[in-house]
């Protein structure tokens, strides 16, 4: 069963990655990142069960905490950009280039 979980987690992670690359709306990109994080959590929990010790779950817990902090900051930035830029598209913020 473990490989199934891991394959699922890999698949979700890949979809998340593709989502980050394809979508232009900052919030959707952000959600895809959350998706990738959840995929990792799944892998952690699977390994916790596989190895029979709590470390996996512990790590997953901490990942959630970090993810929360990240979301807070990310969204604040998105709001700020939206406020000045009137659009949340990721491609608009492209002044930092050659």
């Amino acid at each position, binding site marked *: 069963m473990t490989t199934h979980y891991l394959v699922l987690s890999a698949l979700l992670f890949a979809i998340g990655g593709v989502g980050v690359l394809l979508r232009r709306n900052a919030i959707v*990109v952000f959600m895809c990142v959350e998706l990738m994080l959840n995929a990792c959590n799944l892998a952690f929990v699977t390994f916790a069960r596989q190895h029979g010790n709590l470390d996996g779950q512990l790590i997953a817990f901490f990942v959630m905490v970090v993810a929360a902090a990240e979301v807070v900051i990310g969204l604040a930035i998105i709001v700020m950009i939206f406020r000045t830029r009137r659009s949340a598209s*990721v491609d608009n913020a*492209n002044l930092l*280039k*050659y």
Partner: protein
Amino acid sequence: MQSPAEIVSHAGGVTGVSWLMIALPLFGAAVLLLGGRRTNAWGHFFGVAMSLGAFAVAVVTFVELLGLQPEQRRRDIGLFEFIPGMVDLGMLIDPLSISFALLITGVGSLIHIYSVGYMSHDRDRRRFFAYLNLFVAAMLLLVLSDNYIGLFIGWEGVGLASYLLIGFWQHKPSAATAAQKAFIVNRVGDFGLLIGIFTIWTTFGSLAFADLTHEVAGQASEGTLTAIGLLLLLGACGKSAQLPLQSWLLDAMEGPTPVSALIHAATMVTAGVYLVVRSGAFFEAAPTAQLVVTIVGVATLLAGAIIGCAKDDIKKGLAGSTMSQIGYMMLGAGLGPAGYAFAIGHLITHGFFKANMFLGAGSVMHAMNDEVDMRRYGALFPVMKITAVTFIVGYLAIIGFPLLSGYYTKEGIIETAMHHNQILGWLAVLGAGLTGFYMSRMVFMTFFGKKRWADDAHPHESPAVMTWPLIILAIGSIGLGAFLVLGNRFMNFLSPAVGLPQPADMPEPHVFGVGTAALATLALVAAGAAFAWFRYGAAEVPAVAPRASFLTTFARRDLYGDALNEALLMRPGQWLTRIAVFFDNRGVDGLVNGLAAGIGGTSGRLRRVQTGFVRSYALSILFGAAAVVGALLYVGNI
């Protein structure tokens, strides 16, 4: 073959201070050059005084030398250590060098006196005398030095002096070009001499004449000796305007006439002969080298004569004849000890009568306000008696009129050459005939025939200061030949310096000193003179040069010597320079700048990668991640 005497170091007496001979003119040149405007008034007299001073020292040294026993007559005066461990500069007073010194200072002083008159109207007269003094000093250093480096310093010093004097009227572009050409062609000759000196140093470990005796020279291999001989010959050709480096002599006539007389007749051009005679040890041990010397001599002899026949410019004609006479001397020098005495004898007598004729030509030009074309002369005899008479004496001497100085020395060379090698002998006789023709042509065109003067010319005799040197030189060209050659007096005098020939090499003495070769020469000379009389004496000489046959244009264009140099050296040289400059700017520099531009270009393109879109960066991150995982996988399971 009795080899030259041992060189003995000397101190005391006037010989001890004979370095004054060089020092005085050098001091004169320095004072006149540095003095500037202040020395204008008395500058030329000072120059003449310095030259006369050198002449005086030379005479006293000569007398002191005569006082010694013949074997003692090679005195070496050490001066100072020039390059530690290699060469110490010093002076060698021996019969050969003192005879040269006498010629240089003697004729030199006369020419100094003559120049006082000739250059009286020139505002740079002071500078002219400075350069003349510099020349005399350099020439004396050349002949009096006791080693090859001193000789080389004198050699190039003389080249510099001739550059300065040819280009004296430097505002004339033709004079500047002629001067530059003379110096560069001389430099080619000096290149040969330089390599020769290197070879001598590497083979013998010393450059002093005292060490390079005949026995020492014998030890080196034949090949090296021939190489040294040929290299020295290349140097000699450069300086004495022998083929193939003769093109500069005719252009050198751009300089004032006293310069032509002193440098391009009497002294500098004979430096080559001096070098060949002084390096006798090498040439005698390398017969092939001697043969080449004689061939070069004869070739130049004929070339000079042919050029002489076609030149209308009196100075260029005389220059052609100088070239041919030096060809004789080179031929004599190439015959070994047998020919040395006659070669140097002819050199001295030639110094007198050629200088006499050049100065004569100078006074003619002076009178005809610097007209040089003989076709504008004619019937000058009644107007300029002294110049004419002295010129004719010189003319008779040069064509070898019996009993005059030219006859003895030139006959000596021709007979030794005939004895040595028939072909060379007869070619020399042919040359003598040609000399008879072109010299007679020159005399008849200038002094006899109809008056072909330009309308504003009203010739008058030159002032005394110019005519007296002519007279002295004329007297010299009458008696000197006989004095030197009769009773082998000059050969015995020179023997300590250059050694005596085997009796076998000497041609047997004839009845009344007139051999078959001598008779043939006299006949040819007479024929030449007669033919010249018919063409130029009696007949009407056109004022403008008529269209000429192939042979005459060939001669007028100096046997296309210049055209040859131009085609072989000048054109490819310029072409090579342009390519080198192009290669340097585009090639090497292009490479460097190209490298810089390349780096700039790539960085410009790389800059484009940063598109500013977050998503393209994310894409590259993902690719990176994929690569890492792939690598881990690859590493993991190999």
